[in-house]
């Protein structure tokens, strides 16, 4: 095997190890381990409805995965997608409730507003980083909690329907909802939007000057600066784009999957986005597969919890192992070294 195939091979190895660990946990916990494993692996693909669920969940994961990929690619450890996803959802919900537009313009207006708000909010940690080198990780984590608090306030004090039984907003205008594109499932036009965004991000990253500058800045900010790239601008631009995508994801999720806004905790898609980005090696096109895979094991775990005696939270243990091993530079490194050595000998 050649050394250049090492990275994909390593990703596969990590996924296999994680699945084996999942099987071991299931075997220890379940009374009927084989049956349970089969449910976990097969059930998400068994019916049209389940495949629909898999794709529905993959849509927000693709949005946040794409957003985080761009940030990570620029070597920016910003985890703000979580809060932006939530807050943009609130913004989109507010427009879905209060504006009256036709069925074509209404979702566009709501999504555009959510995306722009997301971009502007994301720019704040970006500007602080670019101008004063304030740690973007800490500021973005703080922003998650701030945006959650403010968003929850808006939900409870501005949008809340007193007649609803729990903390939920007024119903969205029917014109604001995204239409279903696959009869029999809840898969909505958000899928098309996210695929367009992914292709656009691919083109941006690999075919434009700005994308090149982003990659150079990510590889080595100092070097990029010496070669004439204005890295501060690149950092702010990257934050704007990433926030835009995360905000769009939150808006699309709210309008595609719900008729009221009812998130009373952070939905977690931002941190999942970090996992998707890692699986995708920060590569826009690979985000599609990574999000589908994560959605597949999540849905497998949910169905397993419903149909067997193993709780679905098992999957978070598997996810943690995937993150730890995937980001472990040294994991299986000896193998790569051996491959390189062999190749070197052959050529030498």
């Amino acid at each position, binding site marked *: 095997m050649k050394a250049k195939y090492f990275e994909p091979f390593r990703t596969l190895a990590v996924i296999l190890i994680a699945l084996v660990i999942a099987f071991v946990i299931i075997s220890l*916990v379940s009374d009927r381990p084989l049956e349970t494993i089969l449910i976990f692996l097969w059930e998400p693909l068994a019916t049209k409805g389940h495949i629909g669920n898999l794709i529905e969940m993959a849509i927000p994961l693709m949005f946040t995965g794409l957003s985080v990929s761009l940030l990570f690619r620029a070597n920016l450890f910003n985890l703000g997608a979580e809060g932006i996803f939530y807050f943009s959802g609130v913004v989109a919900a507010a427009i879905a409730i209060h504006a009256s537009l036709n069925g074509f313009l209404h979702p566009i207006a709501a999504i555009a507003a959510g995306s722009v708000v997301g971009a502007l909010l994301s720019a704040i940690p970006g500007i602080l980083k670019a101008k004063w080198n*304030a740690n973007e990780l800490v500021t973005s*984590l*703080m*922003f998650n909690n701030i945006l959650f608090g403010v968003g929850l306030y808006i939900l409870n004090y501005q949008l809340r329907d007193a007649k609803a039984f729990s903390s939920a907003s007024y119903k969205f205008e029917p014109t604001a909802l995204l239409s279903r594109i696959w009869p029999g499932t809840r898969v909505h036009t958000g899928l098309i939007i996210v695929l367009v965004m992914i292709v656009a991000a691919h083109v941006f990253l690999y075919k434009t000057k700005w994308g090149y500058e982003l990659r150079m800045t990510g590889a080595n900010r100092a070097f990029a600066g010496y070669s004439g790239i204005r890295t501060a601008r690149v950092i702010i631009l990257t934050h704007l784009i990433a926030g835009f995508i995360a905000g769009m994801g939150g808006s699309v999720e709210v309008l595609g999957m719900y008729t009221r806004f009812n998130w009373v905790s952070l939905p977690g898609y931002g*941190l999942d986005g970090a996992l998707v980005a890692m699986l995708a090696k920060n590569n826009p096109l690979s985000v599609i597969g990574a999000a589908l895979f994560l959605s597949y094991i999540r849905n497998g775990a949910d169905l397993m919890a419903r149909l067997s005696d193993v709780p679905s*939270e098992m999957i978070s243990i598997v996810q*943690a192992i995937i993150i730890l091993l995937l980001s*472990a530079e040294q994991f299986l490194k000896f193998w790569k070294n051996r491959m390189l050595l062999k190749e070197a000998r052959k050529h030498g």
Partner: protein
Amino acid sequence: MDSLWSVIWSTDFAFSILRVTTPILFAALGALISNRAGIINIGLEGIMLVAALTGVVTSAYTHSAWVGLLCAVLSGVMIAGILAFFTLQFKTHIILGGIAINMFASGGTVFFLYLLSGDKGASSSLQSKVLPNVDIPLLKDVPVLGPILSGHNVLTYASIAAVFAVYYMMKRTPLGLRIRSVGENPHAAQSVGVSVVRTQYTALLLSGLLAGLGGAYMSMGYLSLFTRDMTAGRGWIAIAAESMGRSTTVGTTLTSFLFGAANALANALTVLKIPSELIATFPYVATVIGLLVYAIGESRKRKKAAVKPNEG
């Protein structure tokens, strides 16, 4: 407004500040030690959660709060050890490692809770023990001070003791010196024979120990049971307190108390119909402002330093 003043100036309120600050303070001290060693541990939230569950479960099975506390702390050290192993040995990125720990903890604790108690929400079916409250002789009879300072959980006093211990350790012991030197300049530390990896290992394990104490307090002092995601962001507030306290023991302790007071105030203000959602954001807004002021100051300093040689 009158009722607000009467709430704030009551001894109950001062008492509740200490009570609420305890877990934040433990975790913030943990954040401080690892940050000073140059390795940012964002897994504190998860470590606290694991320790909280471990304390409840082991105290229920052994019928001893103290064994529970010991096991909770050990579990905190163990999780920190796993994080250290991956980041230092396998070169996992420390932030991604921290995310993994948090992900593991928020789902994993529910998973184990369900296996052990059949419940996914709370550990009420487990007969877990609680760590005792301590009345301080003499002090407890002093007016005003007595009701504020006496009668707290034993871990609240331990958190104050931990402040002094961490202060002494960082300033006066060889370990503290090694931690500071590794954090400031690992290459320089290495060149004089300090093992960077071993020092960072120690720092991470110590941060796990402190977060473990904070977690044990949550489920065996602050409350008397484990509930799903019960740490509720205290690990993040701790990181905020540590950043705003600029990684000094005194600063971190003061900001921890400030955020604890904000938390206690948020609880008290619900009477006044001020939205608690907004008050809950106070520590984070304060931290962003604090970080910004600090970062601007630092970059001014850097610019001055960069200009000077040219002038001379």
